[in-house]
């Protein structure tokens, strides 16, 4: 059985499949549940300075088996309440990564300090939500902004900082390079793609917020391209996310350059049991290809066998 454990940004993950931010991430018991189901680590919902209700319903639209559109609107209990949830997940033994979102570097730094204090093992900065005014892509689309935000956070916390990058950009590698320059310990790519659905009978957008973000299998090719491009330009590890549903999907990401993976939408299609299945499938795939350790396959597609 191939070794699936990886070292990433100074922390040791028992397996490469992390619960992606925003799925099962508001309550500590859910985080603990994902951990018990076999996740190598769990990333919290992105937490902000104050409680936020999110957008009204409808907040999601499902496309058959290939994709999902959502505009939750970054609902979250706020940094004052949320540490209680982290505590529950930690008591279950979970490796917890805290995700935060903010509108500028000062707030990012302040939130990161707060979440660091709550006992997480790394911090992921959401620089990439595509549909929240004043947050996400709006602060994470310019390399200079990314660098400034990451630097401000890195200067204030001791934990490894992961920059989560948007795919809504001409040059994801430039954003990753900026994050690396700012001191990021890892990059996650990708968040959702800005997207829309219209109900033609009702003559209006389906989601209450109008614009949302596309996730699920359909964005895997886009996520792979981002990871591929980023891997060629940075030395820090890359976490692949977007449309992972099978061990083969995961291995595509690994060979494109990812050292760990996040899983979101597929949980909706397949249930939380997907973590056990993914560990199993990836391990079998690696065995069949003669890899003793997942880490040996990282970036393999960049120097193919001749």
């Amino acid at each position, binding site marked *: 059985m191939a070794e699936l454990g990886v070292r990433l940004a100074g922390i040791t993950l028992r397996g490469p499949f992390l619960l992606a931010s925003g799925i*099962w991430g508001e309550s500590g018991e859910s985080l603990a*549940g994902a951990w018990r189901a076999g996740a190598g680590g769990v990333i919290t919902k992105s937490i902000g300075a104050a409680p936020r209700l999110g957008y009204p319903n409808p907040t999601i639209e499902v496309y058959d088996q290939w994709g999902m559109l959502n505009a939750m609107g970054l609902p979250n209990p706020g940094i004052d309440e949320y540490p209680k949830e982290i505590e529950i997940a930690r008591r279950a033994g979970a490796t917890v990564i805290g995700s935060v979102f903010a509108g500028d570097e000062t707030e990012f730094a302040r939130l990161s300090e707060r979440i660091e204090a709550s006992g997480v093992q790394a911090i992921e900065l959401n620089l990439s939500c595509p549909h929240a005014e004043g947050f996400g892509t709006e602060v994470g689309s310019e390399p200079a902004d990314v660098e400034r935000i990451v630097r401000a956070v890195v200067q204030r916390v001791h934990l490894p900082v992961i920059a989560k990058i948007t795919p809504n950009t001409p040059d994801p590698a430039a954003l990753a390079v900026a994050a690396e320059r700012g001191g990021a310990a890892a990059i996650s790519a990708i968040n959702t793609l800005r997207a829309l659905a219209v109900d033609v009978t009702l003559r209006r957008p389906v989601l209450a917020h109008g614009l949302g973000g596309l996730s699920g299998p359909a964005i895997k090719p886009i996520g792979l391209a981002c990871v591929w491009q980023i891997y060629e330009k940075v030395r820090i590890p890359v976490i692949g996310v977007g449309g992972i549903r099978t061990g083969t999907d995961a291995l595509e990401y690994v060979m494109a350059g990812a050292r760990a993976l996040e899983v979101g939408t597929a949980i909706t299609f397949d249930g939380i049991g997907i973590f056990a299945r993914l560990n199993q499938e990836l391990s079998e795939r690696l065995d069949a290809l003669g890899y003793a350790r997942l880490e040996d396959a990282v970036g393999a597609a960049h120097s193919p066998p001749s």
Partner: protein
Amino acid sequence: MRTVVSVSDTVVETPSTITLRFPYAPSAEPGQFVMVWFPGDDELPMSLSYTDGVSKGVTVKAMGDTSRRVLALAPGATLGVRGPYGNHFDLTPRRVLVVGGGSGTAVLAPAAEGAIAQGAQVTVALGATRASELLFKDRLIQARARVKVATDDGSEGMEGYVTGLAASLLDQEPFDAVWTCGPEVMMRKVCAAASEHEVPVFCSVERHMKCALGMCDACALGPYHVCIDGPVFPAERLINSEDFARFHRDPSGRRVPFGGPAPA
């Protein structure tokens, strides 16, 4: 994934409750719910009060802004419907006590009908604030359920809460199962009364819902997601929970006490 349907019939059931009937083909079981989009307004979880055939139905109680506006809908109104979601009542028990408080009866009525159609004996303890708010009394009688009534103001049946009525029924005769839906404090009392007689209880629970797909975590209740692990829970999953009848999560995910202050 949503089907836009046109309301075929509306029935004002009580001064604060309306049933909307609409054609919706996917098959459903009593206990399941759908997400109903009232265009221009909210999308809300609603139990199916009619589960058989194509003409499904939901029965909506005026609570807040959206549901109040629903009361004014007329045939021809368009809705977006997705689902059905969640688990359902097991209709096999032979002697069932149904305990419905207010609009909770919406989800219990098709379950009672289904069980009776399979040969069960169904007793309904029906509660409401006052006689005019009793939901589906005639429907249940017509289905040959034995219906007992309690009203807070005594305007019909026993005066007092339906929990008292349920407890006395449990004292009087044996049941194989209790099904209940209503405010969680009410359901907790029903669970307590039934546990004295070792009768299994199944509670239909409501939590704030967004995705209804077991993804967004809005409906988290302890280790469960009400949208996929519920809405019907056996009492033993609830009674030791710190949250049941005590806390729910507001739309931000904050754990707040029932009846507590609304979020900022």
